[in-house]
């Protein structure tokens, strides 16, 4: 055996002659390519900011320059006063907060039951949950709208909050997987000590589910925050609009000539989320890496 026990694998690689000089060269090439790719990815955001700082004459001049000259901030107060973005943020935050809280509770309860408490028909029920995941939400758009209008929930946040928090088969599936990954002895010990299912769940299982809960919270947050089609159909009053809905309305009204104004509105709608993403990047990227596929 060439590899000594306990020796890190990388040490073996780097010890090979010839490899030592080649590694930095590929690294430089990789970095160069990735910087170009990365710039292509952020360019639209940078352009958005730069354009939002331009005056109308600059947008009409030929040829178009990338940098604003002179710099102006006047698009921002104008965009903010044209439409209630503060209100939209408030709406988006509280809708997402309620949906996250509700989903975490109901999905982890259901996931726990499906994983650990066998009851009659639980298997068939779980397969039913998996099957409904195959139905695209858009397929039920029309009857869902009719149901909401029957309930009197059209043009009300209830139509966005209640169904989202009570009907999320992916969340149930994800939480079941996380419960299954916990050692069985954990809740068996609690049961032996005389704790009922409710106490076992809240005192023993839930605290141990924390990584799963935070992953689910992130996925639900992204999904809810960016949801567009259902709010578009269900909400009519501007003061009820979520951020994407308000931005779409703004674009529809002001999208013509002065697109500096539209870019200011876009910046107002995206930059706070991007800052939040950078702050919580580690947690968000980890959650998406492990469970992000089902969220879409």
């Amino acid at each position, binding site marked *: 055996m*060439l590899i000594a026990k306990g020796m890190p*694998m990388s040490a073996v*690689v780097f010890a090979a002659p010839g490899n030592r000089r080649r590694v930095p060269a590929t690294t430089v090439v*990789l*970095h160069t390519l*990735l910087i170009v790719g*990365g710039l292509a*990815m*952020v360019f*639209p*955001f940078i*352009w*958005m900011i730069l354009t939002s700082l331009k005056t109308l004459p600059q947008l009409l001049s030929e*040829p*178009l320059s990338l940098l604003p000259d002179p710099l102006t901030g006047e698009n921002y107060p104008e965009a903010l006063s044209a439409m209630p973005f503060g209100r939209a943020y408030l709406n988006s935050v509280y809708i997402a907060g309620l949906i996250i809280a509700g989903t975490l509770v109901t999905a982890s*309860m*259901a996931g*726990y*039951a499906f994983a650990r*408490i066998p009851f*009659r028909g639980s298997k068939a029920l779980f397969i*039913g*949950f998996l099957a*409904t995941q195959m139905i*695209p939400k*858009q*397929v*039920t758009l*029309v*009857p869902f*709208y*009719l*149901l909401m209008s029957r309930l009197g929930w059209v043009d009300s946040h209830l139509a966005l909050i209640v169904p989202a928090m*009570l*009907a999320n088969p992916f969340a*149930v599936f994800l939480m079941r997987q996380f419960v299954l990954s916990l050692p069985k002895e954990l809740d068996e010990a609690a049961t032996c000590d005389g704790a*009922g299912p*409710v106490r076992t*769940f809240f005192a023993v299982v839930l605290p141990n589910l924390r990584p799963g809960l935070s992953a689910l919270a992130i996925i639900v947050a992204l999904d809810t925050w*960016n949801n*567009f*089609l259902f709010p578009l159909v269900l909400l009519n009053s501007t003061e009820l609009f979520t*951020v*994407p809905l308000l*931005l779409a309305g703004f*674009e529809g009204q002001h999208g013509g000539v002065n697109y500096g104004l539209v*870019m200011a509105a*876009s910046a107002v*709608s*995206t930059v706070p*989320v*991007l800052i939040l993403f*950078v702050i919580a*990047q580690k947690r*968000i990227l980890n959650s*998406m*890496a492990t469970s*992000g596929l*089902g969220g*879409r």
Partner: protein
Amino acid sequence: MTASIPAPTARPAAPRELRGEPTWRRRRRRWGLAFVGPQVLGMTIFVALPFAGSMLLAFADWNGLTELSWVGFDNFRDQLTSPKFGRSILNTLLIALITVPIGLGLAVTIAVALEKLKVRTLYLLLFFAPVVTSQVAVATIWQQLFRADGIVSGWIARVLPIDPPNWLGDPRLALIAVCIVTVWASLGLNVVIFLAGLQNVPPTVVEAARIDGAGPLALFWRIRLPLLSPIMFFSSVIAFISSLQTFDLVFILTDGGPQDATRTIVLHIYDVGFGRFQFGLASAASIILLGITLVITAAQFGVQKYFVHYEED
């Protein structure tokens, strides 16, 4: 929260097959049902019921105001022969067939490159930023980038001997523009997922292949790609399903135009259902969308055994 959980008070006599079972276990089983209760109730009311509604409405003529009348398969006949719906299906399939392979291919390439580097957080942030941005904002930004008098067209006209292309106004270019934005917006998610998959490839396997004389290319094609293939397969299924549901991007970018060149199935459903209030026709189109989704997913599962490598252990 716990309001919907009924407290177990008087227990009915146990069925015969349960006699002899300890009480605590029986009580536990009832709690199981109570625990899944909220989600089962929600799924029944907000998913199963509307789904049944879709199935029924697809055979009805109704605009919400007049009397509902049953029309058999007329809605399906109408939709399947409608040029607008045909165009929507074609556009949607084109978007899926163009963006899924390109998106996944780019994501694998980037993930492989990132895996070789020690410092990659910044790159991940750059690639993932569009994923945390709402599709509405993404489309709003790109709509202005793609203006005929905008910066992208200006650059192209300066480099190539052509007139500045009118991306969103030219029926031949609009779908390409939609595809570019779709790939840009979803790339980061697959990069992150593939990178995690590559990091799970056991280093011992890679080492063994390297000692056997495998070069970097062989390592990629013979070791990393096969080990990544189950994740790639799953990603392609999800990516296909979500591109069949394309709505937000085209609604903002082009609203389906010009001349229906970017009209997608969901945009068509929205237009027929909420623009013209033809609930029956919209439901029939929805059922057809479900059918297409199921057929394509089944086909993907059918061909996976030729491409996807599962480890036997």
